[in-house]
């Protein structure tokens, strides 16, 4: 994308400084400028200060933060620039929502649950005196709802936020922002938590609206793939400082700052290139999957009859994990419907699904944490009971689970060593010394400094915690490791290292891995095969190459088409 050629800038920040009330700097002199119709992406990881920088454009600082220097000015439609920060309370209020609008990260929390959506949009118009009459304003509400692709009829406008889906709520948020035709919009990670298909829709809406109305947009995100899709220019924010700024093309293709390079290379690519490079070496585990086996396997797995045409060793041994005819319902709602999967020792199966697909339910059934289910889950040929309480210690040892968020999977009141040791205490007969030794060994294996063993989880970073959680999963040398969205709670740069680690561990230990995720871009980095789950059914499965290069199901094609690429 090329930036529109304009000289005047609608939004300009100069040496913006923000501190916490205790004097810690949050923003350390941030500068940027955005031309009309231009989208500037402000990229940063958690704690970089990107939201603070965005809110400053509206003259808003969250509790505990104070403006300590610099300025932000906006230029509403050809008029003289106005300083948002120097403006008085009343003037600033009149700018907000009319000249500078904000689209929040979490629409569910930002729409007032007690007010109808039509009312909430109309409120902005009333406040800023948009339109001469109530009829004119309500016509504008209809118009702006249509602009964001929502139905605008009376009954829809009378809905409450909780009656809309996440994607619809976010589009209401966008409609609210664009209602007064602002000169500047600030978008704070507006697609976080949305499915890729919805994300594409929202991104397209934003792109169209900003282009049509010549709106300057500050797009805050951590996702470089999204940046490549929507932004003209990029500013990379790190610890309150812009380390690099330039056109999207320049920054993403030829980053000049080491941190940007780190970020860019950390992004997983659908074609398997990019930083999670060790996965290329991880891919040679796949060599046992001969080309001739591909076609047969797709049908085999779907029918759950095992791979008849697999290599000799495989044929004799039962698969490490096998799931057949698995069905789960909550009341009338069927969450899983006759799902069949198998994973062999040393193999990684990616279970791909969006929210609501049933992927978490499936992994919990395997782990024994789910509700009662129909069908069987077996490990190395022996069927498992539905509940952990009725599984033997050996069965519990054989299947281990790495949870999504390392912030909640480790007991905050126990040291790392205590947490990692727990499965050894309950599931093995090892004595204290042997357990201690095994813990140290495993921590080394996940590249976690053993000096951290006696720390509490709070004292570790997210990546370190996730390593500890993986160590807990590995300490009993399981046959099957379930990884449930293990990267989604982590920063991009950390995600890549965790993915690399898992690939290496699988190679070293030869265990079967079920990698549950919503992110298809990780496929070539971690998996040998993919099973696509949608609405509780496996709609497609096969080797990574088959599924990515020639997807057979419409849904898979849609997913691939909607996944942003760099």
């Amino acid at each position: 994308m090329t930036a529109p050629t304009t000289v005047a800038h609608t939004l300009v920040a100069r040496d913006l400084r923000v501190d916490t009330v205790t004097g810690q700097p949050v923003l350390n002199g941030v500068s940027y400028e955005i031309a009309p119709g231009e989208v500037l992406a402000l990229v940063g990881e958690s704690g970089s200060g990107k939201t603070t920088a965005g809110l400053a454009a509206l003259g808003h600082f969250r509790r505990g933060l104070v403006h300590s220097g610099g300025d932000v000015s906006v230029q509403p439609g050809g008029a003289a620039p106005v300083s948002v920060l120097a403006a008085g309370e009343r003037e600033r209020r009149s700018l907000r929502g009319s000249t500078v609008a904000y689209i929040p990260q979490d629409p569910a929390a930002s729409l007032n649950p007690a007010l109808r959506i039509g009312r909430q949009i109309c409120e902005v118009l009333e406040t800023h005196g948009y339109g001469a009459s109530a009829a004119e304003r309500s016509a504008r509400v209809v118009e702006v709802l249509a602009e964001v692709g929502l139905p605008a009829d009376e009954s829809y406008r009378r809905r409450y936020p909780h009656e809309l889906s996440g994607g619809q709520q976010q589009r209401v948020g966008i409609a609210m922002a664009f209602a007064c035709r602002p000169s500047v919009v600030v978008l704070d990670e507006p697609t976080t938590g949305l499915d890729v298909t919805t994300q594409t829709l929202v991104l397209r809406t934003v792109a169209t609206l900003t282009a049509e109305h010549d709106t300057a947009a500050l797009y805050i995100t951590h996702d470089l793939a999204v940046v490549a899709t929507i932004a003209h220019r990029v500013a990379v924010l790190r610890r309150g400082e812009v380390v690099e700024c330039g056109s999207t093309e320049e920054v993403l293709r030829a980053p000049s700052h080491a941190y940007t390079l780190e970020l860019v290379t950390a992004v997983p690519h659908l074609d398997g290139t990019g930083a999670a490079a060790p996965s290329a070496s991880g891919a040679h585990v796949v060599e046992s999957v001969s080309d001739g086996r591909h076609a047969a396997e797709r049908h085999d797995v779907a029918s759950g009859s095992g791979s008849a045409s697999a290599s000799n060793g495989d044929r004799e041994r039962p698969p490490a994990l096998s799931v057949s005819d698995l069905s789960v319902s909550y009341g009338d709602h069927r969450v899983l419907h006759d799902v069949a999967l198998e994973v062999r020792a040393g193999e990684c199966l990616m279970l791909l699904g969006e929210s609501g697909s049933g992927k978490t339910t499936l992994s919990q059934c395997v782990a024994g944490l789910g509700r009662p289910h129909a069908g069987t889950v077996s490990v190395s040929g022996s069927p498992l009971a539905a509940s952990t309480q009725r599984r033997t210690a050996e069965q519990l040892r054989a299947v281990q689970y790495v949870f999504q968020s390392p912030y909640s999977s480790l007991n905050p009141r126990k040291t790392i060593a205590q947490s990692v040791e727990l499965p050894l205490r309950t599931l093995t007969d090892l004595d204290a010394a042997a357990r201690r030794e095994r813990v140290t060994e495993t921590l080394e294996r996940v590249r976690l400094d053993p000096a951290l063993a006696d720390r509490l989880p709070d004292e570790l970073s997210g990546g370190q915690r996730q390593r500890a959680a993986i160590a807990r999963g590995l300490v009993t040398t399981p046959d099957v490791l379930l990884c449930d969205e293990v990267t989604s709670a982590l920063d991009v740069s950390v995600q890549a290292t965790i993915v690399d680690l898992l690939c290496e561990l699988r190679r070293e230990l030869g265990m079967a891995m079920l990698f549950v995720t919503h992110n298809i871009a990780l496929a070539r980095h971690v998996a040998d095969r993919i099973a696509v789950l949608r609405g509780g059914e496996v709609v497609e499965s096969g080797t990574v190459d088959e599924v990515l290069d020639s997807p057979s199901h419409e849904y898979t094609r849609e997913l691939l088409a909607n996944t942003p690429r760099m």
Partner: protein
Amino acid sequence: MFRLILRRLAISVAVLWLVSLLVFVATLLLPGDPARAILGQQATPERIAALNEQLGLDAPVWQRYLDWLGGVLTGDLGTSAASQGPVTELLGGRIGASLVLLVGAAVISTAGGLALGTWSALRRGRAVDHTVSGISLVVAALPEFVIGVALIVVLSTTVLPVFPSVTLAPPGEPVWSQPIQLVLPILTLTLVVTPYITRMMRATMSEVLDSGYIEMARLKGLPERVVITRHAVPHAIGPVAQVVAIQLAWLAGGVVVVEFLFRYPGIGQALIDAVNNRDVAVVQAITLLIAGVYIVVNLIADIVGIMTNPKLRAEVSR
């Protein structure tokens, strides 16, 4: 929504029934023989047997419970052992007197607490907020009689002797014929519960003010007055209604101490007398009455909570 309210109603009825069971079972704990307790140690066995029959004490326990419950439901609360008159007659005038205290204190403390709490929440971190929080923290800690005694010392005896410390209603005349003697009891009760309502309102409002939709409302450029009245306050009503209900129930307990302290002729005073006299029928009646009031007030609060929550309200359309 109606199903939800009906369900809530059914639970209240069930709880009320269990409460009646508990109140009845408590009488079984009476040591020895109630008839002997009433007639004294010198009573002849015949007289005791006769009284037992008169009180229905020779019947099996479940039958006695059903008789008693039947009586309660038809407005017959039994006979007071102390006055030998019907309990309903004994309590009749006193209920009104207690209600005056309760309603007076409830209205003042709810209005005052909500206003103070909101005010404090809007000035979070400033001196006013700290002052309100500090004072409410101190007052909230004090038992009713400590507040009452302090008020008597300051406003009735030593410093500013303006209000009477003892209620002296001429017989046959309602207590509110001399409003001045209501001041100290109501003030005491108000001081007892206002801090809780204030603190709760402040906490709820603070939480609402920190929410995403309030930040959004401000970022839409809405005037602060609209942000508060239209976006913030409606969300605080539900949770605060619950707390107000709990505080009103607290008042029902506090009224016992306050009536005793000010010698106020309400049901609290009657309860203390009945406990002292082991007047079982009166104790049962008053505890049941207070529990009933509590259950009804809570029911109303929950219904308010359901009505102010659009998620629950919307269920009517499904």
